């Protein structure tokens, strides 16, 4: 089966997010009452796996081994068959 996974990576809550801080300062100039900004990234991967359980396991490995650094980041995957 062919799966498409969207993997969201975000800095852990306790890790500083300097990019988020810079965006917060910039959004402040729009006067919209923004009080907090956290940034992250989204990685979309298409891959083949025998079933959904195997696909889940594959995205866990991708997140753990490369896409996120467990010291500073969390990740979660949303999956669909394509």
């Amino acid at each position, binding site marked *: 089966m062919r799966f498409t996974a969207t993997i969201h990576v975000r*800095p852990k809550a*306790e*890790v*500083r997010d*300097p*990019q988020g801080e*810079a965006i917060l300062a910039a959004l402040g100039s729009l006067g919209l009452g923004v009080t907090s900004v956290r940034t992250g990234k989204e990685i979309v991967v298409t891959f083949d796996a025998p079933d959904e359980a195997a696909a889940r396991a594959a995205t866990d490995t991708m997140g753990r*081994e*490369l*896409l996120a*650094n467990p*010291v*500073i980041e969390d990740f979660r995957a949303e999956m669909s068959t394509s």
Partner: protein
Amino acid sequence: MRVAILRFPGTWSERDFEHALSLVEAETEILWHTEVDLAPFDAVVVPGGFSYGDHVRAGAIARLSPAIRELRRFAAEGGPVIGSCNGFQILCEAGLLPGALIRNAGLEYISDWVRVRCEDDGTTFTRGLRDRVLRMPIGHGEGCFVADPATLERIEKEGLVLFRYVDERGIATAGSNPNGSAGNIAGLRNEAGNVVGLMPHPERAAEPILGGTDGLGMLRSLVEALGTAPALAR
């Protein structure tokens, strides 16, 4: 004594290390990241640069390369390893050193000279340097050292901090911390003491014409340590 210098796509400091190591009469070889046999070497340098364009995170892609797989084995057997700048980032990403390096607190890329104080002379790279304040250049956008509180406590308790950013008096202050690193940490060693990493570039502080020679001490330390110690049984 032979020193392997690893080169990934985007590495930029391998020639500087080659030159600086020639000044202390070490034999060197630059190895492409797919040339994985480290057995003939006595020490390994992971130089600075932007391996794989810093994509995903600085050092993240290099972590999965054949050279780093081989480096894990080399390090596990006690072989001396030094990573500078992107090399430090790679060693952290590979889990060979604790913690991680994130975007500088001020978001800017910093190219400057800094002072760091050496806190441990027990490693192959810092013999005789304890409490010495060394002036070396930095050039990085992701040099802010972070770790979770438990890891930071362990790093401090076990004395794994090798270098701290300090002022001209040798004191770690907020003003002397260029990138927001936790505890002003500029460099670390592993528990065994054979793997060290630092953000500054010792290889670029190796000749008076470059503005200083404080980095040469670390390379001399390596040559002296390996020259006097019996060869590692590998």
